[in-house]
């Protein structure tokens, strides 16, 4: 009897093994993902990806641009070299010869011209503004193309040449609605990877290396991105080889510090959280009043208590400290309750009934709604208690993003908290579209226009300094913090991770530059490919292994069970 019991348990164990052993997955891969990098970002064709940074990056694995960026700045890519005319309106690109599309067709200047013409005809919101500057494109010969602009564009090499993916004429010619054009053909580019699989529901992608890539065979055979239940956990269990963290995730990053299996790199988030003032409504239309609120807010406390130190106090001029246009000489609005009180007292808003809250000269209590999206409600609550000290009563109202946007657009608010990216290029300073719709200043607008077309970098820097100075003085928005960002990875899988200068392409702040995987100019004889994949290859299983096991186990259990009954 005991023997039978043992047998039964054994059979059951086999059955369980069959059920729970994993299904074999391809080896030699690098897997990234998690809450920031993973998930569904749309089909990675130039028109179908979702308007998010990761959508663009996924697309950039399959498609190349004329120029690209590394850690130090703009580098040649599809174009080996280029010249700008003296007026900054004509750009001549000399294309790299011998590049092939994934389907084997040669890449030529015709494809570049076609891409620009097609994009002009079928605008995609992301590039619509940039394309307004483009007049026309001429093909000189197979490997020379000239782009004529209507006016000089200061960031041309980044926001157009380094951002617009070039797609093949022989495929896209005649495509009527590019948004609906999907399928294998729509992702044929010149890029280092080919899309092998995309699963929308599960949010995972598989790319295969393009062995004939013109910059050399990529370091990685396969690239996988996926959504996971818990990013840090997935890194530890080996479900992911790399993941990205930011802001409050600093607590998670601390867990990985000192772990020899992982490396951590830090970068600026190129993102800013700000408090937006309504510059059209009394009393937030009074500049001094806005100054007083800025003095009343303790940014270090917000950074410590809400994001646990995962951010730096923001540049009141919005641009990320450290970039070439950052103006370091702006008023800091260090937390100073006395100063704030003095300013508001001078404006004649005093606490006449002694309840700790100031009144307007009319006798009404000074009480504002602070509008925020749910994500930043903790910052808002802290600001509420801080402003209480200067006698201003705040009611926090948190709503979803579309509602906040609508309210901001309609101007039906006093104070709002909102955040946005793009702090690595001066374009983000454009008013009134962004970031504060209620602020109007003609001289600011004309300086903005001027810097956007100034090709001399020193001259442009001075203009951008002025823009930041105006924002810091007038304070239509008060920048609170710039979050930090981290990449955590397993160096034994891949050790080439780095952060791109001012973000990938037009400022996308992630570490997934395709250069990480192509190892462009990285391999030197001294370090013999320590970066290539040397993972332990799982023992290949014969097909149907689990199935056979499961069936055998089931039969064993059934047999013993029936035997027992029969007795």
């Amino acid at each position, binding site marked *: 009897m005991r023997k039978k019991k043992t047998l039964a348990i054994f059979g059951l164990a086999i059955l369980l093994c069959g059920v729970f052993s994993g299904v074999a997955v391809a080896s030699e891969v690098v897997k990234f993902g998690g809450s920031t990098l993973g998930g569904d970002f749309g089909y990675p064709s130039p028109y179908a990806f979702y308007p998010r940074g990761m959508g663009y990056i996924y697309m950039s694995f399959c498609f190349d641009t004329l120029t690209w960026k590394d850690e130090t700045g703009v580098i040649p890519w599809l174009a080996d070299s280029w010249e700008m005319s003296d007026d900054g309106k004509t750009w001549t690109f000399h294309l790299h010869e011998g590049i092939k599309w994934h389907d084997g067709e040669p890449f030529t200047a015709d494809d570049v011209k076609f891409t620009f013409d097609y994009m002009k005809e079928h605008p995609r919101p992301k590039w619509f503004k940039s394309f307004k500057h483009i007049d026309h494109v001429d093909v000189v010969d197979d490997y020379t193309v000239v782009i004529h602009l209507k006016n000089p564009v200061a960031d041309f090499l980044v926001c157009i040449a380094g951002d617009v993916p070039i797609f093949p004429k022989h495929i896209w010619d005649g495509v009527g609605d590019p948004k609906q054009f999907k399928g294998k053909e729509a992702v044929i580019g010149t890029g280092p990877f080919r899309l092998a699989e995309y699963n929308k529901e599960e949010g995972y992608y598989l790319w295969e290396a393009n062995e004939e890539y013109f910059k050399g065979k990529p370091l990685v055979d396969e690239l996988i991105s996926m959504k996971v239940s818990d990013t840090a956990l997935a890194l530890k269990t080996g479900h992911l080889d790399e993941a990205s963290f930011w802001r409050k995730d600093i607590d998670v990053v601390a867990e990985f510090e000192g772990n020899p299996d992982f490396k951590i790199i830090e970068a600026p988030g190129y993102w800013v959280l700000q408090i937006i003032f309504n510059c059209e409504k009394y009393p937030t239309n009074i500049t001094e009043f806005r100054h007083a609120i800025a003095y009343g807010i303790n940014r270090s406390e917000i950074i410590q208590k809400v994001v646990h130190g995962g951010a730096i106090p923001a540049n009141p001029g919005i641009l990320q400290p450290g970039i070439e246009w950052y103006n370091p000489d702006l008023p800091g609005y260090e937390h100073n309750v006395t100063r704030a009180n003095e300013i508001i007292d001078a404006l004649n808003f005093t606490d006449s009934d002694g309840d700790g809250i100031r009144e307007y000269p009319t006798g009404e209590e000074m009480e504002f709604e602070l509008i925020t999206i749910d994500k930043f409600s903790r910052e808002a609550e802290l600001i509420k208690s801080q402003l209480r000290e200067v006698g201003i009563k705040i009611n926090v109202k948190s709503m979803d*993003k579309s509602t906040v946007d609508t309210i901001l657009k309609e101007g039906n608010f006093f104070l709002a908290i909102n955040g946005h990216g793009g702090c690595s290029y001066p374009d983000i300073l454009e008013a009134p579209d962004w970031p504060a719709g209620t602020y109007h200043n003609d001289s600011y607008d004309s300086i903005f226009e001027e810097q956007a077309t100034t090709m001399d970098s020193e001259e442009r820097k001075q203009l951008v300094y002025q823009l930041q100075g105006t924002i810091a003085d007038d304070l239509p928005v008060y920048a609170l913090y710039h979050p930090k960002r981290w990449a955590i990875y397993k160096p034994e899988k891949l050790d080439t991770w780095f952060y791109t200068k001012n973000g990938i392409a037009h400022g996308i702040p992630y570490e997934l530059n395709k250069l990480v995987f192509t190892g462009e100019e990285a391999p030197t004889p001294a370090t013999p490919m320590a970066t290539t994949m040397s993972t332990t290859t799982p023992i290949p299983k014969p097909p149907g292994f689990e199935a056979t096991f499961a069936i055998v186990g089931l039969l064993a259990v059934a047999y013993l069970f029936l035997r027992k009954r029969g007795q």
Partner: protein
Amino acid sequence: MHRITKIISYIILIISILSFNFFLPRVMPGDPLSFLTGGPAMDMPIVLDKEMRAKLLAYYGLDKPLQQQFYAYMLGILHGDLGWSVYFNAPVSEIVIGGLKWTLLLVGAATAIYMVLGILLGAISAWNRCGKRDVGLLTFVLSISSFPSFFLGMLFIILLGVNLSFFPISGAQTPFAEYSTPFEAALDAFRHLLLPAMTLVIAHIGGIYLLMRNSMLNVIGEDYILTARAKGLSERYIMHTHAMKNALLPIITMIALRAGFMISGTIFVETVFAYPGVGRLLYDAVTYRDYPLLQGAFLIITLVIITANFVADMTYAHLDPRVKHE
């Protein structure tokens, strides 16, 4: 005659739902274009000027007067066309069905398990009222059921998924797996299904158990049970044939009512296990103000719920012949 009235009332229901689906999303502040410029993280800000905005509105047909849009929407539905999602840039039917198949699998499996378990345990509990079994079951079921489902999910992931590495911790399939037989594919889906389904079962079993227990207690007090006892029938027979069948009636209604909640209410479980499904999709559709997707998703989900209710109605009539004659 009764059946015809019922069918007519269902048709009226569907038409009013269609209209609600169209107008409700449009009442919310904001529009689908606002999310094309960036989300709360906004890692790639896009400035949408008036010209581009006008072009996009025209592309999605949102520039037309409301009644014209409504007409186009109704016409599309009659043709079986649910439209094109603004954010996800794909046909709505494809997106919704892609998510719904996993939700139905998850919810279906969980409902089947919690229903059977809940009914059985409830019946046993009631039959042994105030006995050891009853008190034990009551304490046990209520205490596990009162765990929040996302917490329970995390617990399962850490205990069973990570520590024992018995179960996969996310998704509904092993990514990029190549199956040699359909059996293997089913096995893989089953392994991924177990933890989320278990979480749902535990989260929902409490309600059904309590209802069954109460309903059973009511039935036990009825005269016909006394009669059955007087006839000398065995306890087991009375419990199964006389008591349980009658106690089931309110349960059927409850399950039908819950079907709708289960479909959208799985969002916690979907999020914790990164399980694809319609709950998360609905949440995104609302956040992005993706009108076509919202309309399509709500429509398909309501159809599923109406079907569930219809089935419940029919089952009810079958279980309780009195309903037919009313």
